[in-house]
């Protein structure tokens, strides 16, 4: 048995953060709480990335996920839910099946993790931003460009969807406004 190192403490702390917050997302009855707990999970994941030396990925995770996606989700929550009624904003159904199944799945996966002979290599955690950059502009250039096209399409698609909704709403704009 090896001894407890500071690194191990940090890692297990991050694990606790990720898993604990994710449990909250899965089970909290208040959707606002769930959204804020998701922040913890995402930030913890970013920490895990940093821990392994993927610093660019970690920072990108915080910037895009926390700064962008989470804010979008919060928008969705605030625009659609009866926020005033926080206790009932996030109902669940079938927890009696879902939770045991989830536990079973996790147990099975962990079993596989520990019984599979992974072909490990000697890993060195050297933080490096250059290598992903080179990969993006070298080997994965086409995918990189395609990703930008996908983002553009998402942008345009979201606008199209929202515009159509606005048009459809125009006759009863007043009542719609009152409901939100």
């Amino acid at each position, binding site marked *: 048995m090896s001894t407890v190192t500071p690194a191990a403490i940090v890692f297990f702390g991050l694990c606790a953060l990720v898993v604990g917050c994710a449990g909250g997302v899965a089970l909290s009855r208040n959707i606002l709480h769930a959204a804020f707990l998701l922040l913890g999970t995402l930030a913890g994941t970013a920490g895990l990335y940093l821990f392994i030396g993927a610093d660019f990925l970690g920072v990108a995770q915080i910037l895009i996920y926390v700064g962008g996606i989470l804010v979008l989700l919060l928008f969705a929550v605030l625009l659609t839910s009866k926020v005033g009624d926080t206790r009932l904003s996030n109902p669940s*159904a*079938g927890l009696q*099946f*879902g939770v045991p*199944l*989830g536990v*079973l*799945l996790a147990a*099975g*996966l962990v*079993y*596989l993790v520990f019984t599979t002979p992974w072909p490990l290599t000697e890993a060195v955690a050297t933080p490096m931003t250059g290598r992903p950059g080179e990969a993006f502009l070298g080997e994965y250039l086409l995918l990189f460009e395609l990703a930008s096209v996908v983002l553009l399409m998402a942008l345009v698609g979201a606008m199209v969807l929202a515009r159509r909704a606005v048009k459809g709403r125009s006759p009863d704009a007043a009542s719609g406004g009152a409901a939100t």
Partner: protein
Amino acid sequence: MESLTGDIQAFSRSQILWLIPLFPLLGALINGLCGRSVQARFGRRAVHAIALGAMGLSSLLAIVAVCKLTALPPAARFLLDRRWNMLSVGALHVDLAFALDPLSAVMILIITLVGTLIHVYSTGYMARDPAGWRFFAYLNLFVFSMLVLVLGDSLFLMFFGWEGVGLCSYLLIGFWYGDLAKARAGKKAFITNRVGDWGFLVGLLLLFRGLGDGRVPPTVDTDIAGGRVAVGPMLNVRELHDQMSLHDAGGKHVFAAALAGKTVLGIPLLFLVGLALFLGIAGKSAQLPLHVWLPDAMAGPTPVSALIHAATMVTAGVYLIARLSFLFCLSPHALTVIAGVGLATALFGAAIAATQTDIKKVLAYSTISQLGFMFLAVGVGAYWVGVFHLLTHACFKACLFLAAGSAIHGVEHADDAGTIDAQDLRNMGGLAALMPKTHLAYLLGCVSIAGFPVAAGFYSKDEILWKAFTQAQVFVPGGVLWAIALLTAGLTAFYMFRSYYLAFWARAQPAAAHIHESPASMTTVLAILGAAAVVTGPLLGWPEAWGGHPWLERFLAPVFADADAAARFGAHAHVLVFVFQLASVVVATAGWAAARGLYRDLARTEARLEGWRQAFFRLHRVVQGKFFIDEAYETMILVPMRDISQGLAWADRHIVDRIVRLAARATRGIATLDGWFDRHIVDGAVNAVSTVAFAGGRRLVRLQTGRINNYVLGMTIGVVALVAVSWFIG
């Protein structure tokens, strides 16, 4: 196997050869697919620009390629442009590859340059035809096929081009397909060529089979710098040539001897190959007995007759023999057949040409006759002379055809009612003053073909006569060959000047007021070709006896090195050459004088001609009836075929149909039974199954809740089950 050596063809790579046929193909595609709308929207000039542009680019590239070729040392004059592998089946490997050597260089220059001139001429000749776009598409397609034929590196590619030119010939002969006779002429050309192509294919397969005996490895080591040389069955002409030239230290050509030693049913294989290939060649080049299509092919527009049926396609057979000279020289028997058939065709064609009244038919039989001369040349082993005559013939015959076309054009447009046959010599006459340029061009062509020493035809034809006399390879005495050829030459001069005098003098033209010279696009081309018909002879083939050394012979020497080594020519006194040349000139002059005396002024000689026609009634009828070969085919092949097929049709109706009807009745009876079974037993079972499925479906439909959660739960259960299974098994 002991060390081998041989005369291996050195070659250089080229990247431009494939572009030479590409441009005509593009032109054909553009004009063929969207020519109608191009012509409707942008006018004829756009169609002409596309076709002429393609030809111009192709000619330019051909000239560049030939310049690159001549820059190489003579023995290494071979450009190879390999694109990609097309086909690999067993021992057969076919590349899309183009090759240029001195022989194909001569050919592509003829094709692209004469082709371009004829395209220019066609812009004038076809100016009023509504389907001009189609004409130019076919014409470009023809040039493409012809270029593939001569540039193709392997016999496979050459066969592709060979079939391609046949197709274009068919399309162009039947260009005015509204006229049933013209459509029939196209069909006749196509079917006659099929007979020949069958021979070609059989020849190729025999050759391919003869080359392989299953024991030879695909390559052998040699002492040559290149090292390994491919041997065994192959269709690549260059590799075939290399294989044939391999010999051991004792000078024994191992592979050539093995091939020459093979027999089929006791007959030498190479003789059969030569005969089969010559059947194909006879079909394409209109030699006896497959010449029947060429006179009918004159139904096509005149530029087509000039390009395809005089200058290029019909000479493909000569090209093929020249290209495979290293094989043909191994079989003197096959060469004897070729020379014999060539000579017979020459005499035969000339005799018929002297009696025809349709100017294009005269020229068609003249072409057949001249092709016979070429085959005589290659048959006696004088390959370069055959190619030389091919070249000069391309110039003067194209000139003659186009001049005839110009005259026809003039007569046709003077006759608005369309009541007279514009091609008939009896409706021409007296055109010399009305169409001076056309007249001059036709005269130049006649002088050239008749063999007066001032023009090209003399140099090539006289060389053929000389080679025929001195040859010691073919199993016929040279003197006999020479005598018949000389007689034919005299006939040639007679019938050509006969057509000349009948068309341009003879009588006063009744429609003189309406006939005028053709447009500049046509007369310019006539001028160029007329000049070519004069200068190409002395320029390329200044006779040895006159202190020259024919340039063309030196240029082509590397191609025919092996075949020339096999050819045998006897040694004769130098003075004999001059005697023979004198004889040729005398004979030609006699032919001209006879034609002039008889046809210069018909009013004076009509009665005498008619008298002779009566006196030699039978002979005249036979010759004018083209020796009734068409009729013989009709009675010997077509009629029996029709009878047999009618007999078969009767058998079909009365015997086969009755059996079929009986079978049908039995089937119906069985089907009735079957139908009952179907309705009551099979349908019942099917309905039962569907009822069960329907009821089950109604119960199962509740699983479809439409709620994502339930679906995800289901998926999770599946995944967990999989993990559990792997747990227990794994």
